[in-house]
């Protein structure tokens, strides 16, 4: 029997084309995510989700401890933002995650909100 010729992670780079992970989709049909939409896993334990792509599993694992922004998921898992959005849309459909969209664009930031951020920055 021939041994499979695996490359190790560093040599291999990204073997799977990003949109193969999403079944060719570049955007999700139902859900809209922004770069700073926060995602948290609904379940704190590793549930049996054999049907999920490894990348979707990785998102669930990453978002188990705290809410993580879409951009942060993409940066940590080294995936394009649009791929993360599609996968998160699927996870939301499957009710495996909870999401928090940023304040709506029509809703301008209040003086109070801005001052709370200023206080936080001063205390860094």
């Amino acid at each position, binding site marked *: 029997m021939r041994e499979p010729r695996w490359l190790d992670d560093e040599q291999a780079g990204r073997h799977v084309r990003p949109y193969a992970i999403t079944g060719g989709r570049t955007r999700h049909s139902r859900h809209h995510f922004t770069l*700073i939409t926060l995602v*948290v896993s609904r379940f704190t334990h590793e549930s049996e989700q054999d049907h999920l792509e490894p990348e979707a599993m990785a998102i669930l694992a990453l978002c188990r401890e705290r*809410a993580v922004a879409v951009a*942060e998921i993409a940066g940590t898992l080294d995936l*394009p933002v649009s791929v993360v959005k599609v996968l998160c849309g699927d996870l939301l459909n499957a009710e495996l995650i909870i999401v928090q969209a*940023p304040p709506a664009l029509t809703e301008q930031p209040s003086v109070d909100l801005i001052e709370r*951020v200023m206080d936080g*920055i001063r205390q860094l």
Partner: protein
Amino acid sequence: MVSVSSEPLLPTALKILIAGGFGVGKTTMVGSVSEVAPLETEERITTASVGVDDLAGIEKKSSTTVAMDFGRITISPELVLYLFGTPGQDRFWFMWDDLSTGALGAVVLADTRRLDASFASIDFFESRDIPFAVGVNCFDGRREATAEQVRQALDLDPSTPVVLCDVRERQSSKTVLLAVLEAARAQAEARLAASGQL
């Protein structure tokens, strides 16, 4: 029946952009205030008919990958601020709507030796009414120009803050962020005053 929600309350996420020319210190600034090491995120964007000659009505579409780095500051359990350093060389980041819309405000980092590299960002934020402050990054403590000279050279509105800074220093980067937030607060107060006059 009593329904008990076990779902955690998620914080609200906000963002501030850090723009400016290539090599002006955007990544350094993200790193000096972020609680995590700066991460890089990329996205493919479609650049329809950007900078191409008109070929008799043929719609030219191409796509380009835009990468930017970002950091995170947890303000409180309810508020998380993300900092996005825009790609320096790439003029196409302006087309990445998801990056630019909904920002609390922006920093335009400038280098006095290459002030022209900040024009595009300034025009962009002015045209979109996004509050911003100009941070003049003084490497090695060199102060080759005063804030007032930079203001004149960039033809800035008197209300736009200009801060001399060294973004390698956390305290200095904080001053720049606070200047942005002051501009944002002034805009929010002006909006309140305007609505009160109706």
